[in-house]
């Protein structure tokens, strides 16, 4: 009889093994797909029952996002509130259990939701005991006053569509990043369907997600490559208004002829024909492209917490015809970029050719205020040697002083800059202005871009100027 008893015992053992197998199937193999099943409300329930961390502006005080407790019959739940509304919406993003999350809300989600690896002993004990895991606070680098000024300026521009990015060239901190039109992230659950249908796409962060031809602002990259190729600022070129290539002819903006000019003057007057000639005859496709890559083209800044569309030159330089090189030299053709990238280009020149890693998160703090993470400024790339950068800096100052851009001048402060008027048929051209100041020791670099805003000096320049002035005066006072 014992043999029979034993035999059925093995049957029971097999049953238990099968159950462990079944559990492993659900808990390991099918876990992900079940968690994402639309019928599964557990993740949503978990998310709304835990307060997320704060998002704070660079002053460490201005609250950009917080979780507000609300009592319901099923227990306390938390709603996300954005006290600063539209001005910060495209950076902070929104957080919705219905429509997902964007911006810092998703980029720093593991910190904000408290699911990051525990960083303190308290956190570790909490995790092991399954205790509540309140989210960490995220402090951004944004200057709240500057952000508001930038948002107002871009929103009241000619088309109301565009972006402004301000960056501290010395450490790569993003001081302002705005996109217009913006949206109110409060009550996103109700407003989302309408916002998503809006033809002006307010949910898109134009500063980083959209790509536009950068036009003549790209000439600072071509100029950098030219300086490295041995072109001197005082070297003379003769302009007859066009530059002819097999199959493609470059024309100057508005068909002007400048005659005998220096390289500096070619930048000041933004002479396409001369830049095209220099690019084709002195620099070459490979070196021009390499310079753009060194400035951050073709890079989506994966360490940056917001999704950046990589600026691009189109086809690889090995496939370029001289026509492609000529067009690229003044930022048309297949070249496309955005305010974020072009602000970094300006900042790199301002920082003596050293490109700093762009940062928008200054520090992560635990709910008790303990600093958990504080990234230090780091050099991303040695793009230009200091001499070439200083030379270009001086050339860009002359763009303001000799280019009759008096509107860009700030009393008592040397300003450097470059306009861009990028053709965007069938609409009006995109208006660009990249700038930095004070030119001898720059503390801010700005790029303003107005979609279909017309000439660079008319739409974008005043916006960037307002932002820069607000920043420099704020610092002085």
């Amino acid at each position: 009889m014992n043999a029979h008893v034993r035999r059925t015992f093995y049957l029971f053992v097999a049953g238990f093994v099968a159950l462990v197998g079944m559990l492993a199937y659900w808990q390991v193999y099918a876990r992900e797909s079940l968690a994402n099943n639309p019928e599964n409300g557990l993740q949503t329930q978990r998310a709304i029952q835990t307060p997320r961390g704060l998002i704070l502006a660079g002053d460490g005080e201005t609250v950009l996002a917080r979780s507000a407790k609300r009592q319901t019959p099923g227990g306390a739940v938390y709603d996300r509130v954005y006290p600063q509304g539209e001005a910060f919406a495209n950076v902070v993003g929104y957080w919705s259990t219905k429509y997902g999350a964007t911006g810092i809300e998703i980029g720093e989600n593991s910190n904000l939701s408290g699911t990051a690896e525990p960083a303190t002993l308290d956190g570790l004990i909490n995790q092991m005991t399954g205790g509540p895991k309140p989210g960490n606070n995220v402090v951004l680098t944004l200057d709240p006053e500057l952000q508001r000024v930038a948002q107002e300026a871009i929103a009241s521009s000619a088309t109301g569509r565009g972006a402004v990015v301000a960056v501290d060239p010395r450490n790569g901190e993003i001081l302002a990043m705005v996109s217009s039109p913006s949206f109110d992230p409060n009550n996103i659950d109700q407003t989302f369907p309408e916002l998503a249908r809006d033809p002006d796409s307010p949910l898109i962060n134009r500063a980083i997600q959209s790509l536009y031809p950068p036009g003549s602002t790209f000439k600072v990259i071509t100029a950098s490559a030219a300086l490295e190729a041995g072109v001197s600022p005082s070297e003379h070129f003769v302009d007859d208004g066009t530059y002819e290539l097999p199959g493609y002819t470059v024309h100057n903006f508005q068909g002007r002829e400048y005659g005998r000019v220096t390289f500096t003057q070619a930048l000041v007057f933004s002479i396409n024909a001369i830049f095209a000639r220099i690019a084709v005859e002195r620099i070459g496709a490979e070196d021009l492209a390499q310079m753009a890559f060194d400035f951050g083209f073709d890079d989506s800044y994966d360490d940056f917490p917001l999704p950046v569309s990589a600026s691009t030159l189109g086809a690889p330089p090995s496939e370029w015809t001289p026509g492609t090189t000529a067009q690229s030299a003044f930022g048309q053709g297949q070249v496309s970029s955005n305010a974020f990238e072009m602000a970094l280009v300006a900042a790199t020149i301002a920082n003596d050719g050293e490109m700093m890693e762009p940062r928008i998160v200054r520090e992560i703090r635990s709910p008790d205020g303990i600093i958990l993470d504080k990234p230090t400024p780091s050099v991303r790339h040695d793009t230009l040697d200091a001499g070439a950068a200083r030379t270009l800096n001086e050339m860009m100052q002359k763009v303001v002083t000799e280019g009759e851009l008096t509107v860009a001048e700030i009393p008592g402060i040397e300003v450097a800059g470059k306009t861009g008027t990028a053709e965007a048929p069938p609409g009006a051209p995109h208006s660009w202005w990249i700038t930095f100041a004070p030119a001898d020791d720059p503390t801010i670099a700005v790029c303003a871009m107005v979609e279909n805003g017309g000439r660079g000096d008319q739409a974008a320049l005043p916006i960037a100027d307002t932002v820069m002035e607000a920043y420099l005066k704020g610092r002085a006072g």
Partner: protein
Amino acid sequence: MTQRATSPMILALLITTLGFATLIFAQEPKSPPLIYGAYYAGTLFVLYLGVRLILPHSDVLLLPIVTLLTGIGLVMIYRLTYDVQGAENLATTQAVWILVGSGTMFFMVVFFRNYHRLFDYKYLFALIAVILIGLTFTPLGYEVNGARLWVDLGPVGFQPSEFARIALVIFYAGYLADKRDVLAATSRSFLGIQIPALKYFGPVALVWAASLGLLVFEKDLGSSLLFFALPLLMIYAATGRIAYVLLGALLFSIGSFVTYQLFEHVQLRVQSWLDPWQDPDGAGFQILQSIFNIADGGLTGTGLGAGFAQTIPEVETDFIFSAIASELGLLGATAVLLAFLAFVYRGIKISLLAEDEASKLLAYGLTAMFAIQTLVIVGGVTKAIPLTGITLPFVSYGGSSVVGNFILTALLLVISEQAGRREEEEILYEGGP
């Protein structure tokens, strides 16, 4: 037989304490009267010492397993119902039931040491079992969640089937031990399978059919499955005749088909097992919530108190294992299953070492019942098999179930006492180690 289990006992109580400490100190400051915890720990430890004193040769390793399982159950019931909005506090009630179960066990250990007398009343036990199940059809019985399983006994309701099944095991063990030889003898063979003489089957078949029939009409599928499989396993253990198993499989197929055709609630159960997604907010809701919660636990679990198992209807009874798997993860749930397997292993060992055939069959029957019950409910909540409402021994909330399983353990203990004594004598005579 293991005669000392003080360390496992302390370990089991420590695990329970750790569970409570986690919930009380790490989750929220609200705590039940701690005196309940002290009663619980004290009672089980005194029970352990008492059993060792009264039954010095018994397999007391069963007690730390019982302590661990009731402890985990208590922690989970506390976590799921104490100070939870919309839930009635059941933890203190469960603690009281554990005390009652312990008292019953102690009583049995003292007064049923000569358990062989039970076999003299085997037909009475069969009658009691059928009457107990039949009670639910009297005006005393009432329905809960569509199954008529409950009997109103003044202050408390109880589920007679939890006790009837033990009475049935006693009957089957006694009868099969008597008739074992004639049942095993074969008179003819058919298609190479030897057909046993069926006439001695009468009483078993009668009790089997009666208990099963009543349960089917009560709509208690879990118990039906248990009452169906148990005698088959016991007959196989007694006779070793595979023919009985084949016969059982055949009957099971016919029975399943007939009940599926006859009863709408059976069809519903099978359909929501095969395709719960068809009606995720209705028939499939419970099993889907169970699966979602189990999956949510992952390898290491969400941590005690951090899961959402309250979303499963009936979580503190039938679905308590889903809550364990959710909050303790695959590792914790496997550990709990191993504790169940350890209990089954001790039970089988007691059966193997037991002196006479009736004792062997009784120990085996009780153990097999325990094992099937665990496999059926855990298989049900993990969607391995169709869900049938049945409690997880010692862990699920429920007085009848807890007390019933304490009685089951008490019987195993008294059987092991005799086996242990015999083992010791053999060693003495043979001079072995």
